[in-house]
């Protein structure tokens, strides 16, 4: 199955002035911000987080859903987002998955993870990731540790290596688990995928911020 992932950190709608309509939604994609204009561009990116299943979105199903919902224009927009790197398409083979994992990093969101089944056998244990007093996602120990340890890992692959060295198992098994259909990390917005950091490249004079956006408006 060829799957699609959304890439980037959601920064939200930008209103240029008091009482004015939102001009666009912004996401940060590596060291650049990407404006998503109109409802469709943003909805296509948002729908790539998950379209009903608990895991990565099958590309064919995704394209059918966005075109059913927004018309044929959405298919073109999806391709443009893929071109821009805001959507990543990964084919179902080990080299493609590893290329993806080396070319992207995973970053955690929310906090307060606790076991929902204390006392259960390790394989059956589930953990809640929560925010604002609500359980947002329930995950197994492998995904919990991927969520926990990815913040210090330069790439998704290095995060898989770290989880494997902490919990046992092989990094590729961890990566396969990330790709599995039960993975709610992306679907439930408790983590996001991004491009790896390049500290040597910072600061980038072209990096746009909300401060600059406000100033330009």
């Amino acid at each position, binding site marked *: 199955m060829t799957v699609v992932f959304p890439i980037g*950190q*959601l*920064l*939200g*709608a*930008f*209103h*240029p*002035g*008091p*009482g*004015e*309509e*939102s001009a666009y*939604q*912004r996401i*940060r994609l*590596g*060291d650049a911000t990407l404006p998503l204009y109109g409802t469709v561009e943003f909805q296509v990116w948002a729908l790539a987080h998950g379209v009903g299943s608990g895991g990565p979105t099958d590309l064919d199903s995704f394209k059918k859903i966005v075109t059913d919902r927004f018309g044929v224009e959405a298919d073109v927009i999806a391709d443009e987002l893929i071109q821009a790197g805001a959507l990543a398409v990964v084919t179902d083979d080990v080299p493609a998955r590893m290329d993806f994992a080396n070319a992207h990093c995973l*970053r*955690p*969101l*929310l*906090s*307060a*993870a*606790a*076991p929902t089944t*204390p*006392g259960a056998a390790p394989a059956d244990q589930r*953990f809640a990731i929560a*925010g*604002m007093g*609500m359980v*947002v996602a329930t995950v197994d120990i492998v995904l*919990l*540790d991927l969520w*926990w*340890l990815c*913040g*210090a890992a*330069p790439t998704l692959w290095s995060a898989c290596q770290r989880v494997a060295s*902490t919990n046992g198992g092989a990094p590729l098994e961890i990566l396969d688990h990330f790709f599995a259909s039960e993975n709610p990390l992306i679907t439930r*917005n408790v983590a996001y995928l*991004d491009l790896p*950091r390049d*500290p040597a490249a*910072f*600061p980038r004079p072209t*990096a746009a*911020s*909300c*401060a*600059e956006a*406000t100033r330009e*408006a």
Partner: protein
Amino acid sequence: MSIDPIIFPIGQFGGTTGAADDPATRCRIRLGDRLLMLDFDRFRTWAQAHGSIDRIRPVRLTRPALVDQLVEGGDERATAQEAVTELAALGLLAEVDSADARPFAAGHRLAPLMLGLGNSAVDPGMYELGLFDQPMIAIPRALCSLWEWSDRVPSLWAGCLWLAAVEEQPPQQTLRYIIEALHGLLAANAAYLDVVDGGTAAP
């Protein structure tokens, strides 16, 4: 007159290992590449150092203020003081002189833990953070800029240098502003502080 340093919690909470009423349960904190296990008493001290939403403005959280809060919560003063000292030694609490915060800012980084929800149509200078369609806090533009880019910059100081250039301010002035505003982000769990990549948790 000297002012007590501000105290910050460092590290990312990774959940508890078992039931809250089980004395064997530990609370996991990741500090850079180090994975630490705290008992509930130590964890409560670390969590309290985040501040609380309703106390962001009136309380400038310092070691004495943190100890006072723990005592208000039922701890013996000596126990609370010992816990704070122990966590500081582990690098899980950092005390920062806001007049000279550069060493702290160069050794630590900020990372977001919420979604950006954009600026308000009513007050475009304020930016909301939260869950999807559920705002938790609203923060000013400059603080939000730093938050948005925090995962891309190598340290809090590097972020302040960048923000100072954008805002056309002296970097030290920007840093003082950020240090005074940080508890607002931490109390809401909208971000966490960590050591810089490859850094050690220097107390």
